[in-house]
């Protein structure tokens, strides 16, 4: 508590969802919601032309800004994310929109600001009323409106692109242009009221390696600009106005973390082998082709999970076969002969599928998502499969279906693959007909039926995030129940063990590609259960490798056996903490 003289404000600790790991300490910048209050003001009739000129100028400046932002995003994050700005450009260049704003200025002799706000808010309302995917675009329309108003009023708003000192950004939510335009050199961390694990902010923060906590509810109300803030993206904690003791602890923790992380660099080219010589395969999870480089830099031996959703989310139109093909070829090329697992579209419960649904689903997480969505949109599904089969020529590629809950779905999906192969054969297009096919085991039903499924697939990949969510019936984006979401829940561990064992029995390779694979706490129990392949986010690779290289299989077997006897996740976690700390004290400072 703030007992020391130098710190009058009381320390507050907020719990959210850690979406990008790491610790950051810096003063806060609070991005307000940026509500422009534009009063209706009339201008003299002969000034209307001048207002029109201001509008044209502001639009030009805005366009240049967006082009610049897009170029930088392409460079730093990748083409797919950058394409979100195409809609902005399209709207700015839209003749109808310009005409409407001009008409409003000339018709009512009002200021350009008022005209912009009126017309764009009208647009937003129209979009909101649309049942299709366009409703999602409202955010972008507000984004454009703010940009135009900013340029009209000449206000230099706190932009995230031009910072001069280190800050932690606090915001209700970030617009796509704010996130993509973030200045990596000065933004040390993000604390966001809204959002969940898969929000846009979370994905970009992870891609840029900025520690981030989301789902904080009211952090922007609790903290003010300049407040000292600690972000612990690993544990999902934000500390506002920390007392000197907490600050000192975290500073030390941050330093230790940095030292520890640097010490891991030396491991890059060493194999992921246990102390007693068991070889383990370490792969990386990626969203964008450009991330392959990071995987390899961090010592990954290939890509264990290539999520293809960004191909769909980046733009308004469904990606073409060539869009898919190009992205896949780029990944394969960068991987230089290393294995790659491409997961077919795993959208659902989100913008893309919801916007295409005639009626919004009442319970989208249990709705028409992922493979279900694909099996009901076969033409779209086929396009992706064609591209995967074509890209697979001469490469070590496998195809993986997400969210399989029963064997019929797997068989249907496989029969579609067969159909596509026939089409390609008939058309004389080069493809790989014998591509290995696997499934994500991420529902309790798939886990319980894995013996049957093992006979019909070439590999299993356990997606722990969804497996936990569906096994424990917890939405971890909901802060009221998020604490129930635990990989250490004995029910989850039992399912995991059964799937891994089933794979061993049937000689079907098993990997874990969920976040659990990236948590060094679970490395030992997973090894002990018999897991041979870990696939995790690239930043976690060195630490997992370090963990693997620090243990023996004998130790891991013991941990795995023991961990099965506990009845609560707390006991499991305490035991795993103690076991891991014994092996690798540097990773778990007190």
């Amino acid at each position, binding site marked *: 508590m703030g007992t020391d003289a130098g710190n009058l404000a009381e320390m507050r600790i907020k719990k959210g969802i850690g979406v990008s790991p790491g610790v950051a300490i810096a003063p806060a910048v609070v991005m307000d919601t940026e509500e422009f209050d534009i009063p209706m003001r009339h201008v003299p009739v002969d000034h209307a032309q001048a207002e029109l000129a201001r509008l044209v100028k502001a639009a030009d400046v805005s366009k240049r800004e967006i082009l610049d932002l897009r170029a930088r995003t392409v460079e730093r994050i990748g083409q797919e994310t950058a394409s979100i700005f195409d809609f902005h450009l399209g709207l700015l260049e839209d003749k109808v929109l310009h005409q409407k704003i001009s008409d409003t200025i000339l018709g009512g002799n009002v200021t350009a600001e008022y005209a912009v706000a009126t017309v764009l808010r009208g647009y937003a309302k129209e979009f909101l009323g649309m049942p299709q995917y366009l409703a999602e675009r409202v955010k972008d329309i507000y984004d454009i409106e703010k940009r135009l108003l900013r340029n009209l009023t000449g206000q230099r708003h706190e932009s995230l692109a031009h910072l001069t000192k280190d800050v932690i950004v606090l915001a209700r939510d970030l617009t796509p242009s704010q996130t993509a335009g973030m200045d990596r050199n000065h933004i040390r961390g993000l604390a966001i009221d809204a959002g969940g694990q898969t929000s846009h902010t979370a994905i970009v923060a992870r891609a840029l390696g900025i520690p981030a906590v989301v789902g904080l509810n009211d952090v922007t109300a609790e903290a003010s600009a300049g407040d000292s803030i600690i972000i612990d993206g690993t544990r999902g904690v934000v500390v506002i106005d920390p007392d000197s003791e907490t600050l000192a602890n975290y500073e030390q923790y941050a330093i230790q973390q940095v030292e520890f992380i640097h010490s891991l660099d030396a491991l890059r080219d060493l194999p992921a082998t246990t102390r007693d010589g068991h070889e383990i395969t370490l792969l990386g999870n990626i969203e964008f082709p450009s991330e392959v480089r990071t995987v390899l830099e961090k010592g990954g031996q290939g890509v264990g999970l290539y999520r293809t959703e960004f191909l769909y989310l980046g733009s308004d139109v469904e990606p073409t076969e060539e869009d898919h093909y190009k992205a896949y070829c780029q990944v394969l090329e960068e991987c230089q002969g290393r294995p790659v697992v491409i997961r077919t579209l795993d959208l659902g419960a989100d913008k893309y599928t919801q916007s295409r649904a005639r009626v919004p689903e009442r319970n989208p997480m249990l709705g028409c998502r992922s493979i279900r969505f694909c099996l009901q949109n076969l033409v779209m599904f086929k396009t992706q499969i064609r591209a995967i089969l074509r890209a697979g020529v001469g490469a070590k590629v496998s195809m993986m279906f997400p969210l399989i809950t029963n064997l019929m779905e797997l068989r249907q999906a496989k029969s579609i693959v067969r*159909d596509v192969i026939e089409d390609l054969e008939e058309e004389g297009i080069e493809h790989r007909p014998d591509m290995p096919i696997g499934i994500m085991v991420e529902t309790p039903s798939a886990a319980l039926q894995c013996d049957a499924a093992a006979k019909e697939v070439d590999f299993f990949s356990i997606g722990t995030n969804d497996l936990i969510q569906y096994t424990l019936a917890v939405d971890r984006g909901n802060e009221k129940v998020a604490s129930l979401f635990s990989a250490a829940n004995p029910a989850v561990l039992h399912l995991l063990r059964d799937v891994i064992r089933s794979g061993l029995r049937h000689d079907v390779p098993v990997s874990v590609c969920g976040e659990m694979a990236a948590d060094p706490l679970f490395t030992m129990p997973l090894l002990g259960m018999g897991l041979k392949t870990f696939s995790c986010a690239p930043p976690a690779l060195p630490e997992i490798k370090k963990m693997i290289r620090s243990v023996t299989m004998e130790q891991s077997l013991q941990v795995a056996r023991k961990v099965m006897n506990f009845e609560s996740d707390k006991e499991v976690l305490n035991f795993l903490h103690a076991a891991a700390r014994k092996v690798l004290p540097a990773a778990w400072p007190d």
Partner: protein
Amino acid sequence: MKLSDIMIGDAIVPELKATTRDAAVAELVEALAEAGAIPKKSVEDVTKAILAREAQATTGIGKGVALPHAKLKGIKKPIGTIGRSSDGIDFSSLDAKPVYSVILLLSSPENPDEHLQAMETIFKHVQRDIFRKFLRQSQTKEAVVDLIHEADELG
């Protein structure tokens, strides 16, 4: 696409005489020809094409359902028929169980997307336990046709 857009009512076989996979396919193709959906002289070729596809990988997707199909020149839009077998037929199904409902589909090689849409429709219905159950219970051509229309209405 609706199930009733694809299925040729007159070609539905409420009780297959065939006891083997090959004979069942031949019987259904024959029924399509009888109903005038395909030319009589093409029966042999069509049967051959379907069996050739079946030889590559079984279309017996389990739960008593098989979906033999082929893409053939001369077929303009997806057409299909349904055959029922009370005793069950060995289709080398993935679950190694006999097939009680054979849903046969022919489509045009020129329009693979249409073929997929037809498959999508069929998949959607056979996924449902209730549809498979009712299909197994439908003992007349009319009952099968009614079921198809009811399924379409439910969407």
